[in-house]
């Protein structure tokens, strides 16, 4: 059965690869952009799910790590001339003003720097629990934004960084996305993952069983931040312009919606949630824009998209708290069972 699963997974990956190859050739820039967005958000949702869902530590600050990752990656990948052009209020500090590395290196750096920050704040952050943990992480997210706005000689302040080279393409985004899913799934299924789940269920009992709760929580936090940092770097090189206003609590809210809709605690759920909300968000845009149809014009209601999202989240929380997948993960067997139940036994 395991071999069957492996073969099926391999086949699915081949299908995905050929679809992406086809998309790159013939589906037009807009669709490619959406696919890139979906990949990045899957990556972010899956890593956010690790700390919130699997380890049960409700963090509201992923926008901070995203910001750190995006800025690190951008600052490292810009060339010195571009930096001089962009930093018009205060020049960029040395040595950042002279360093310029390749895209993959900047991504790795982004991940490492984010993880480093996560490690530093883990000590104070995990002294709190529950609601307070949420607020402290939220506060951290806000503080990072304020610092990004004010450390003009490092981040160029509110003007942000522009003219980044659009390195992100389908290969990078989906490749790293699949790598993230693979790593996280392996982590969750390992003894570390089980420790995280134990801490989530009952921290005191877990400690009594010999699990070092602090180390477990920190591991989840740091790994989560690492992938969020890389995601931030990918995002920066997709949008090609970043500024502190991108990394607000609203971004966190988006990620939160994704993992909640998909099912808090399920990696598959995070993937599904990311796809639904990213794609759905694009589809819903048409509510916000004026369209003319047979001479009738609909003026377009800006802000309607977020109203729909918030309502969706509230409805999910009240009526379907477990989200789409609950805590279950995807298995090939589960998929077949689902089909059998829906469509009756296949003819023999």
């Amino acid at each position: 059965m395991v071999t069957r699963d492996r073969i099926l997974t391999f086949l699915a990956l081949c299908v995905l690869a050929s679809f992406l190859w086809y998309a790159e050739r013939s589906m037009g820039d807009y669709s490619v952009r959406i696919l890139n967005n979906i990949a990045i958000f899957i990556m972010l949702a899956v890593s956010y799910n690790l700390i919130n869902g699997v380890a049960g530590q409700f963090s509201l600050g992923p926008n901070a790590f995203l910001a750190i990752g995006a800025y690190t990656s951008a600052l490292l990948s810009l060339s010195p001339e571009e930096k001089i052009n962009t930093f018009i209020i205060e020049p960029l500090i040395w040595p950042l003003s002279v360093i310029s590395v390749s895209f993959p290196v900047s991504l790795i750096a982004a991940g490492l720097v984010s993880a480093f920050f996560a490690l530093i704040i883990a000590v104070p952050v995990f002294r709190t629990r529950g609601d307070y943990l949420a607020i402290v992480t939220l506060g951290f997210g806000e503080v990072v934004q304020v610092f990004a706005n004010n450390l003009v000689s490092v981040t160029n302040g509110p003007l942000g960084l522009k003219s980044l080279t659009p390195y992100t393409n389908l290969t990078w985004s989906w490749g790293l996305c699949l790598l993230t899913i693979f790593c996280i799934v392996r982590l969750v299924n390992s003894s570390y993952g089980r420790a995280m789940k134990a801490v989530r269920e009952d921290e005191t009992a877990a400690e009594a069983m010999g699990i070092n709760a602090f180390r477990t929580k920190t591991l989840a936090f740091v790994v989560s931040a690492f992938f969020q940092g890389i995601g931030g770097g990918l995002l920066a090189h997709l949008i090609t312009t970043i500024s502190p206003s991108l990394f607000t609590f609203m971004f966190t809210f988006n990620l939160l919606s994704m993992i909640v809709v998909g099912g808090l605690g399920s990696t598959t759920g995070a993937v599904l949630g990311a796809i639904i909300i990213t794609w759905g968000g694009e589809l819903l845009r048409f509510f916000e824009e004026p369209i003319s149809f047979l001479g009738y014009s609909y003026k377009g209601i800006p802000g309607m998209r977020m109203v729909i999202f918030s309502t969706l989240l509230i409805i999910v929380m009240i009526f379907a708290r477990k989200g789409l997948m609950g805590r279950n993960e995807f298995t090939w067997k589960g998929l077949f069972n689902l089909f059998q139940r829906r469509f009756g036994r296949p003819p023999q």
Partner: protein
Amino acid sequence: MKRLLGALFLVGLICSNGLAADPIVIGAYLSMTGNVASYGQMGWDGISIAKKMRPEVLGRPVEVRLVDTKSDKVESANAVSRLIEKDKVVAIIGEMISGNTLAGADYAERKKIPMVSPTATNPLVTQNKKYIFRVCFIDTDQGKIAAKLARDLFKAKTAAIIMDISQDYSVALASFFKREFTKAGGKVIAETKFKSGDRDFTPQMGTIKGAKPDVIYAPIYYTECALAAKQAREMGITAPILAGDGVQAPELLELGGDAVEGIIFTTHFHKDMVTSEIGKKFLKVFKQEFGKEPDAFTANAADAYFLLMDAISRAGSADPQNIRDAIANTKEFEGVTGKIVMQPNGNPLKAMVVNKVKNGKFVHVTTVNP
């Protein structure tokens, strides 16, 4: 009977779609919400009236697709990429403020789609770019005129600057003013900063009060200017305020009340300066539709639209490259805001208008020709 009517309706639907000529699709990315929502909305009003006055070109109807940038740079970049990739526009109007235009222009330049900004005044917007144009003056000139006004009108020897560090427009214009004011013999004795969305200016006003300048230069946007002026007056600061084109919105008067009386600012337009035929017609149609007078942002956006139409008809085609070349060759275009002659760097030679807030209204003081 019902079925017959239904069938007729369907036929009508199909026919109207089939008979309608292939529209020319242009894009507009404007800030309909957010910190400078007034500009985007005013711009859209201007484009709507202009479109009403000239709904077709080359025998084809014009369709304008609007995307809201939420006054944000990143959204602006996204908006431009969506307009180009999804809506496949042949030209773009926007944005109203420099920061957002800088974010969006990159992509348009890369994809070789011509872009015309109504009111982005930062020089960098068109610098070294072949596909980006504007229908307004640039900030190097605005800073120069502002410095001149400070010296001549206010006889100021010292000035304090308050700027919005989250806006490229504000930062650049402040630095141009400082350069010109210093060259003309003045001295900038205080430079205070805030960022868009800030509503409390007590620390900045405290610094300015201590510095006792002859004039305060505020190259910022309307909400912050109104609130800052209010708080300045509350703190007992009496120095006159000189501002740029970023303050000309009705909210300045509403929010500022008495505090903004007497503010003098450089800008693009006042209805009293209109001389062209199309301008007069625009004033009439606009007043009919909206019941009020148009101002700089409306008029410039209308001009961006008219310029595009003019370029398309001169080019004889809706191909982006041809449109771009036609815009670049604009020599004799008469717009609502005056004559536009496009220079090779993408900037037109345009007159600058000086307005003043008097009795709760914007009044025209003078026009400075290039």
